[in-house]
């Protein structure tokens, strides 16, 4: 792990599917809602992440999809403790992240990093690109000495496909795609194991998105990275991911192998989400039947009882407002949190469908 200079960590380690690098259990991030006025009493909570169990396996790309406000970004941040979890636990390579002290947390920051959404905002406009990439090296005392650091910066720029001579230039001199490459180089500077990409391609143009997706994929393979790819773009997530987790209103509602999920989604929300993605083919668009959900996502400050999706679900039936469904195996490691796949106390739940 301390292989300074060794930039390619060799061929991918043999993957044990149960080799979990990041494990979240019952993870909660609640933001307090305070009353306005002098006392600012706590009146409630926005339950951005509300009891998430998630395993990220070593060496895999796990896609995390959901719509705005579902808590996917907060979850990504909480796994790195960039946002403080208010409950539950996160284990990173066996150690409890939520219990780390300041010093240990900074050590974690080398091994677990984030690539941010907006490449225009995520680079300090007053630092050169080289200074930005050198920051993790300085912070963690890697490649000490000015010359060694400069060499490492050049190497990183090359790795992400930017001319190393550009190190002395400022962010505004770069296009969005190049900036995102710089952001990736910064993230990779400390040779991390785990990278969270938080909507990393969302603000890029289509043609540039493809460049960055290709880059992420090749880096992930070459460096054996474990990637959590957080995005609202299902097609991009499908393209990059080995497995996909779907979030809705603070919960993971479905996790499956990526191809399996896009082929046979089991949760009604995933089904609606998939059917709502516009396909770039007029023929397919005419042929498909779209499940148009009614209404809006409820506020995370007022989560419905029982199943959170029931207020928009066309299959909602008797147990849904009563029982909060847990993720359950629906076959072959594919899990979904939906009563349609069996509720204790009902013979055939499908019979009660509306």
């Amino acid at each position, binding site marked *: 792990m301390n292989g300074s200079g060794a930039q390619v960590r060799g061929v991918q380690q043999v993957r044990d599917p149960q080799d979990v690098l990041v494990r979240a259990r019952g993870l909660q991030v609640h933001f307090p809602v305070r009353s306005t006025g002098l006392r600012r009493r706590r009146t409630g909570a926005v339950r951005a992440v509300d009891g998430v169990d998630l395993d990220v396996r070593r060496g895999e790309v796990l896609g995390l999809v959901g719509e705005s406000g579902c808590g996917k970004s907060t979850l990504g941040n909480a796994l790195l403790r*960039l946002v403080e979890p208010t409950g539950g636990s996160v284990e990173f390579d066996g150690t409890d992240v939520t219990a780390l002290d300041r010093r240990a947390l900074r050590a974690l920051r080398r091994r677990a990093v984030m690539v941010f959404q907006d490449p225009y905002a995520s680079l300090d*406009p*007053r630092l050169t690109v*080289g200074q930005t990439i050198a920051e993790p090296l300085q912070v963690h005392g890697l490649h000490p000495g000015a010359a060694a650091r400069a060499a490492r910066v050049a190497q990183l720029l090359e790795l992400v496909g930017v001319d190393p001579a550009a190190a*002395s230039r400022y962010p*505004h001199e770069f296009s969005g795609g190049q900036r995102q490459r710089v952001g990736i180089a910064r993230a990779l500077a*400390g040779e991390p194991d785990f990278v969270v990409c938080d909507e990393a391609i969302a603000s890029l143009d289509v043609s540039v998105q493809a460049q960055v997706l290709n880059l992420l994929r090749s880096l992930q393979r070459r460096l054996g990275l474990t990637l959590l790819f957080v995005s609202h773009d299902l097609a991009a997530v499908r393209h990059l991911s080995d497995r996909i987790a779907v979030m809705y209103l603070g919960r993971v509602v479905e996790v499956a192998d990526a191809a399996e999920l896009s082929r046979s989604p089991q949760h009604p929300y995933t089904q609606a989400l998939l059917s709502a993605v516009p396909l770039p083919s007029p023929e397919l668009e005419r042929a498909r039947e779209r499940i148009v959900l009614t209404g809006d996502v409820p506020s995370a400050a007022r989560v419905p009882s029982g199943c959170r999706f029931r207020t928009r679900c066309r299959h909602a039936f008797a147990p849904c407002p009563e029982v909060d469904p847990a993720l359950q195996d629906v076959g072959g490691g594919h899990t979904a949190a939906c009563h349609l796949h069996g509720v204790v106390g009902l013979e055939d739940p499908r019979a009660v469908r509306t």
Partner: protein
Amino acid sequence: MSAAAAPVRPRRNRFLAGARLLLGSPPALFAALVLVGVVLVALFDDQVAPSGANDVDVQQRLQPPGAGHWFGTDDLGRDVLSRVVLGAKVSLQVGVVAVGFSLVCGVLVGLFAGFYGRWLDTALMRLMDVLFAFPAMLLAIAVIAILGPGTTNAMIAIGITYTPVFARVTRAAVLGVRESVFVRASRSVGASDPRLLFRHVLPNALPPIIVQTSVSLAFAVLAEAALSFVGLGTQPPAPSWGRMLAEGRGYVDLAWWIAVFPGLAIVVLVLAFNLLGDGLRDVLDPQQRSALEAARARSGRRRRRTPGRTS
């Protein structure tokens, strides 16, 4: 910090290039020349001044500007030019020291209050509010009442009264920068708080602070004048522009030059500070800087281009 940055950024050259860019704009060049001039005059005031500051010559009272006395003489027959020259030191000192004091204190307070927020913000900013609530002059007088009159104490007093202004300006700017993604990004790779504060937050919060500095420099020079006028600043008979301005006020209809020349000196100095502040702000912003460089390059090309050709 700067040493570490050296390999990826040829600092010296950038500094020189920045200076050249700054001086390439006529207002900033003018400002720089004026300031260099004032500093030189202040340094060599004894050599520059035609006579001593307090060479009283009752025969020559209230002489208008002329060959003997370029700026005329005052009610005691002292040479106004000499007093303006000898007063430059005081005014510069007051400007730089008083504003420097409030700049350092205010920026630190604003930086910490804005960055850490919560109780620290509340505590620091309430303290600033208390300072701010007093009329500036009253506060300065109170400070001097404790420290005793004199130029140095006047500077400290003025410095204290301007501290809340800098604290507020800095805090507001910091609040904006604190939430920016690049600060989060830097934190996410493990940057410590001091690093975040002084490498990312402060440089990006700088533009309004620079503007405030140039404005405050002007006010400080005037505040010193006011304090001196009521006898709490520079003690007579030592010259300071502010005091001369104040003293000359009574003779404005009779001998305008006593007030006008020190007044002009203040105006020119303040203008120079402001122009330089504007120029600095642009050059310190990489984006503005590139735009400037591009514009310069284009205008250079245009001048060289043979007429009739278009791009």
